[in-house]
């Protein structure tokens, strides 16, 4: 029924025959230049799992500790990310609070936990409960995880606050920096094609 040796460009629909790429290589559409697929080493999903697990730990650290502290005339204030969402909610800016919660907490967490779960169960050669649904979900929410934009936003607000008070970067700020790198690395290492093929054989 299916022809797995073909790959269609998702941006211009041109059909290509899939070939073996050299290590680190990527295939681009000959007509529109869109990325078709990358070379994935055989242990790609092992690496992805290690990176995703690290990112999970960093995510916890980044959410438990305060992002920034502020000192004005001897009074010290600080806030965690969730604390910041809460103050927006209490400030009647509920739409914005939901948007921030969704893009910086919910989506990254769901993506990381989901990816880790799928990779762990695949590694054990089992079909994890809901693996297909989880991979579908990860694919659909991917554009909405915005940790890197959030980090830049924190840096901009630090500069703004530096004009009026003494600013102390918190533990979570550095954790968010590392989290951003590990999320990107895990996403780059993850080989969805191998995961789908494996899921197909388990079924």
């Amino acid at each position, binding site marked *: 029924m299916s022809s797995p040796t073909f790959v269609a460009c998702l941006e211009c629909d041109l059909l290509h025959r899939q070939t073996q790429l050299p290590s680190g290589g990527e295939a681009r559409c000959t007509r529109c230049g869109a990325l078709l697929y990358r070379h994935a080493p055989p242990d790609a999903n092992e690496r992805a799992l290690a990176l995703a697990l690290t990112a999970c730990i960093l995510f916890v650290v980044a959410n438990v500790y305060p992002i920034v502290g502020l000192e004005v005339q001897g009074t010290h204030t600080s806030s965690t990310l969730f604390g910041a969402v809460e103050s927006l909610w209490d400030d009647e800016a509920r739409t914005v609070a939901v948007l921030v919660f969704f893009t910086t907490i919910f989506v990254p967490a769901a993506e990381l936990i989901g990816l880790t779960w799928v990779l762990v169960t695949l590694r054990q050669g089992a079909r994890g409960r809901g693996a297909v649904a989880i991979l579908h979900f990860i694919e659909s929410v991917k554009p909405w995880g915005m940790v890197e934009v959030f980090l830049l936003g924190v840096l901009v607000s630090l500069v*703004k*606050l530096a004009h009026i008070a003494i600013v102390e970067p918190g533990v979570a700020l550095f954790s968010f920096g590392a989290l951003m790198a590990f999320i990107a690395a895990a996403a780059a290492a993850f080989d969805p094609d191998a995961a789908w093929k494996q899921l197909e054989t388990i079924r």
Partner: protein
Amino acid sequence: MSKAPTAARSGLLACEVCRLVSHAPPPGSDAYCPRCGAMLHMRKPASLARTWAFLIAAIILYVPANTLPIMDTSSLFGTQSDTILSGVAFLWTSGSFVLASLVFFASVMVPLVKMIALAVLAGSVQMRSVAHPRTRTRLYRIIEFAGRWSMLDIYVVTILVALVQVSTFASIHAGPGAAAFGAVVVLTMFAAASFDPRLIWDIQEKES
């Protein structure tokens, strides 16, 4: 260029989730990917109508997003309302030129360019243009990637509200412009996701 071997011409279609290429179903019937079970579409459904709908909503909200304050600061010296642009102006006059340019680019230029680009893309497909398909596809790729960076100002407001509200010397509150601005970003992201760049190439095939 005329008889390009596209998936559609070969009676095949690619799953948008797992990318498996499979045989296209007879027209009018629903099909699901044999590998991952996702619903299959030849092209994104109602692509142009949805793109226009999200885009027009975004353009309308772009006005309050830029004219209403995104945050209000009250201190001993009185209250002050900041719009996106006055926030940029503040950074510029206080000497942070790099940061001012960054915020201006992310919050003003990116949404504006993105909306214009989407209108050009949807309009050119509607008018069956065959000009520069490769450039238009690249334009689509860029705006789809860059759109998320407009959320920058929303996060700046979030941090400022959280930190300055609790202290005594001043308090910062989110203004109505913030919600409008967030909505513009979300709507333009939906608009970009609804647009199907393959439509640009379909016209190419038919006209040649």
